[in-house]
């Protein structure tokens, strides 16, 4: 594994549960997507609330010894195969209270023209977590690596 990856893995640890949470948020169309870094948000998000709104702590949090300087910092643009990725962090009381995604790609660009179709009966179910061991997994392309790159550059400004 390259040095760069080791470096960003360290950063991921620093950011705690953020990357777990990153993927759950369904963003309302009329606002900038905002991801909250509060680790208590990580559990029990299956499925997410229908009207997810950004949560900003109203009570000040105690500064940590290795805290960052308060302010809003915008990371550099990291290029993924699917387009530019850019993050912004908000530091309050020495802690990251918000991570905003300024730019992120759709993993499959395609035109969105709609047509009318008949609706046959389709089987449905509520999704449930499975505990089975599997050889490999399938999911949408992750862009986390590029968010880490962009957040890393935002963090260097805050420290």
């Amino acid at each position, binding site marked *: 594994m390259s040095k760069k990856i080791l470096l960003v893995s360290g950063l991921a640890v620093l950011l705690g549960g953020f990357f777990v949470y990153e*993927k759950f948020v369904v963003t309302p169309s009329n606002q900038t997507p905002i991801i909250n870094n509060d680790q208590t948000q990580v559990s029990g998000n299956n499925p997410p609330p229908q009207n997810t709104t950004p949560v900003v702590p109203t009570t000040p949090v105690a500064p940590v010894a290795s805290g960052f300087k308060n302010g809003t910092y915008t990371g550099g643009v990291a290029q993924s195969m699917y387009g530019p990725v850019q993050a912004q962090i908000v530091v309050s009381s020495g802690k990251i209270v918000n991570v905003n995604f300024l730019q992120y790609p759709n993993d499959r660009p395609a035109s969105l023209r709609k047509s009318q179709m008949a609706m046959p009966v389709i089987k449905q179910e509520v999704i449930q*977590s499975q505990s089975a061991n599997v050889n490999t997994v399938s999911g949408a392309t992750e862009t986390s690596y590029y968010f880490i790159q962009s957040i890393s550059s935002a963090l260097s400004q805050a420290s």
Partner: protein
Amino acid sequence: MKETRLLMGMPITIEIVDEAVNKEIFEKAFEYFGYIDKTFSPFKPDSEISKINRKEIIESDWNKDIKEVFLLAEKTKQETKGYFDIVDNNGKYNPSGIVKGWAILKASQLIKDLGFNNFYVNAGGDVQFFGKNNDGKTWSIGIKNPFNQKEIVKVVYLKDGNGIATSGNYIRGDHIYNPNDRKEKIEDIVSFTVIGPDVCEADRFATAVFAMGRDGINFLNEMPEYAGYMINKNGIAYMTNNFDKYTNENF
């Protein structure tokens, strides 16, 4: 033997369980993905795609892989009633929606041509399978929970040659609207998994059906050689009529 590398902006994992497996084959396969990125990335100014978009290369001089992918894109556009289109609003080519599955299949064929029969290639969650797993059983694959990347919500079993692709946009800033009534928001789909005759087929239809929204599952239901599992923002999954058979290890 199994190895993961970050290439083309995503983790690519190859696992080969044939006894004759060696390091060299992994090197060759990963090198191939490097070539694909160098050729097809619209975000690299010196890629062939970028040069084509700047009209620096005339059509007759296009690389044969570019021509093959463009032909496949055109075929997919016709088969999906225009939902799939690699030409963006500015008239530029962006083949990222189709090149991944195609490249996984090509890399798998390269591994197969060198005499390996039991392996999978997983690039960013799209997978091509050949043969059996380390226990001599059918390869199993978990569909990720779009609301929690550490969990899986379904297990499917894929036979020799089969492929699977999942399309999704878990952090969505855009929504799909019904053009006949802009006020009506079409049910938001967060994850769409397609099982197909190979990963290239699965991938190109995963792209298109995801764009179709809720109609995507009906579209796929009429294509018996494909199966689909679609999850909406409320955690409800819809599946094609033939999907259940893939959840049985011994079908």
